[in-house]
């Protein structure tokens, strides 16, 4: 007789509130039901009551980890409606901040993942590295979480000292290559705990519409930086990372290798930073009538914005689709037939973000 086991909304295994109701037979999970909506803040409705500049601040608070990507995607949609041209230097700075954000988010995840595996010394090592990335972000923007770097038509702050940033980035690069990647790809503790568990087949990944590292670990070539290039990705050249073993181990390795690519992009962008202004001298406060969509690759996958303007200084409609909204339902496909004890690690492997999902 299968029994029901509710986990959450508040549970030590979860970083944020959501609920998984498991139906188990002995130690094996037969099915599960996922519920979200515990931290809904109606941000979409609130954006329709503020002007575009104040909205940039608001949408940055959708997520506490990938905050910059929300502001930049919102700005991209508005720039498309109003045909605002972004200077090349601003596009490069946006790319650098986006990649630094990816680096710190993937390191955060790698730390949490290591802790779920039970590898505490690895957790310490990774969180030290993450602090170094946060230091760079603080040096550039003055903030550690909500950077406030994005404005309509450009960025708010310039990068004045690329050399000091390059020095820290190469330090991060060295630790990634010497410590993080060898341990994630060769260490027995990690491999034994992650190989072959939480399988998400390619067909399931497609039908659930999963995005980001989760889809790329299941052999789906889904990367907005390559498919719909924005900011400076087309100029910098970009190599997507893809694996097809579909398990938790693949998701760890995809994220680890992506960090190397992020480091390369940051170094390349800093070395080739174009001269010029960082934003247009004047940006209209009232946006002409129209609608547009914008997509970006956040650390967890595709962020999608739809913005409609009625010609005033306040948007008529803002729709936000975050990557976790499509990734979280796929937990159901991953846990069937798995051991109960593996659930914390399987759900962590998609890097769920509930504040994003609920908005």
């Amino acid at each position, binding site marked *: 007789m299968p029994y029901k086991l509710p986990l959450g909304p508040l549970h030590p295994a979860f970083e944020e509130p959501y609920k998984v109701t498991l139906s188990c037979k002995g130690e094996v999970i037969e099915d599960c039901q996922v519920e979200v909506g515990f931290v*809904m803040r109606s941000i979409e409705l609130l954006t329709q009551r503020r002007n575009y500049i104040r909205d940039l601040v608001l949408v940055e608070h959708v997520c506490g980890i990938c905050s910059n990507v929300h502001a930049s995607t919102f700005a991209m949609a508005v720039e*498309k409606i109003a045909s605002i041209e972004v200077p090349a230097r601003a596009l490069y700075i946006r790319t650098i901040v986006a990649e630094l954000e990816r680096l710190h988010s993937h390191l955060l995840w790698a730390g949490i993942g290591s802790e779920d595996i039970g590898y505490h010394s690895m957790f310490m090592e990774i969180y030290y590295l993450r602090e170094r990335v946060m230091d760079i972000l603080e040096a550039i923007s003055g903030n550690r979480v909500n950077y406030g770097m994005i404005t309509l038509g450009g960025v708010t702050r310039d990068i004045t000292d690329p050399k000091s940033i390059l020095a820290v980035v190469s330090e991060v690069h060295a630790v990634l290559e010497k410590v993080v990647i060898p341990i994630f790809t060769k260490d027995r503790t990690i491999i034994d705990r992650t190989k072959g568990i939480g399988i998400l087949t390619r067909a399931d990944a497609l039908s659930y519409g999963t995005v980001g590292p989760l889809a790329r670990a299941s052999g789906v070539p889904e990367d907005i930086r390559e498919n719909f290039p924005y900011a400076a990705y087309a100029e910098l050249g970009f190599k997507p990372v893809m694996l097809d073993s579909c398990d938790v181990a693949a998701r760890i390795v995809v994220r680890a290798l992506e960090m190397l690519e992020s480091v390369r992009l940051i170094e390349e962008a800093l070395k080739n930073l174009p001269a010029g202004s960082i934003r247009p001298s004047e940006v209209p406060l009232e946006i002409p009538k129209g609608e547009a*969509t914008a997509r970006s690759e956040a650390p967890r996958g595709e962020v999608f914005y*739809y913005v409609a303007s009625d010609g005033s200084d306040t948007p008529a409609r803002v729709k936000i689709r975050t990557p976790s909204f499509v990734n979280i339902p796929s937990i159901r496909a991953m846990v069937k037939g798995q051991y109960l004890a593996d659930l914390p690690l399987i759900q962590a492997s998609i890097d769920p973000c509930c504040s994003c999902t609920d908005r």
Partner: protein
Amino acid sequence: MEELINQLIVLTKQKNPQERIDGIWFEAPKIDLEALAQLMLLNQFRLTTMTGIERDDGETDVIYHFNGIKMAINIRTTTLQQKLPSIANILPSANWIEREIRDLYAVHFEGHPDPRPLVRPKEMPEGFFRKGVVESLTKEQEAK
């Protein structure tokens, strides 16, 4: 890809879809949504999301945003008496999206396999993003 566009032109009965900077846009007030879902699934397009937009006449516009490799397609349709057929049985990715639009804009997707509220708290009425509902909720709050 041209074949897909031609099939969509037949399906949406719109001869000249708009080509914009962010993809191809179709306007189709009446469309066979199930056939659309099957067609997109066959062409390996992913349902990015659906956007609900309140109309002044009490109905709701719903935009279906699809994307494939290097190509985005947006199809705008309108509800009839706040109802649309569900595509969640064909595309599992539509499941949560349709539940959310029902919570926020009170659009009923007929034939949805699991029509429970997704983000709506128990004390909130259905469609709590609609102007009328927001106003009455604000008045209630102020009276307290």
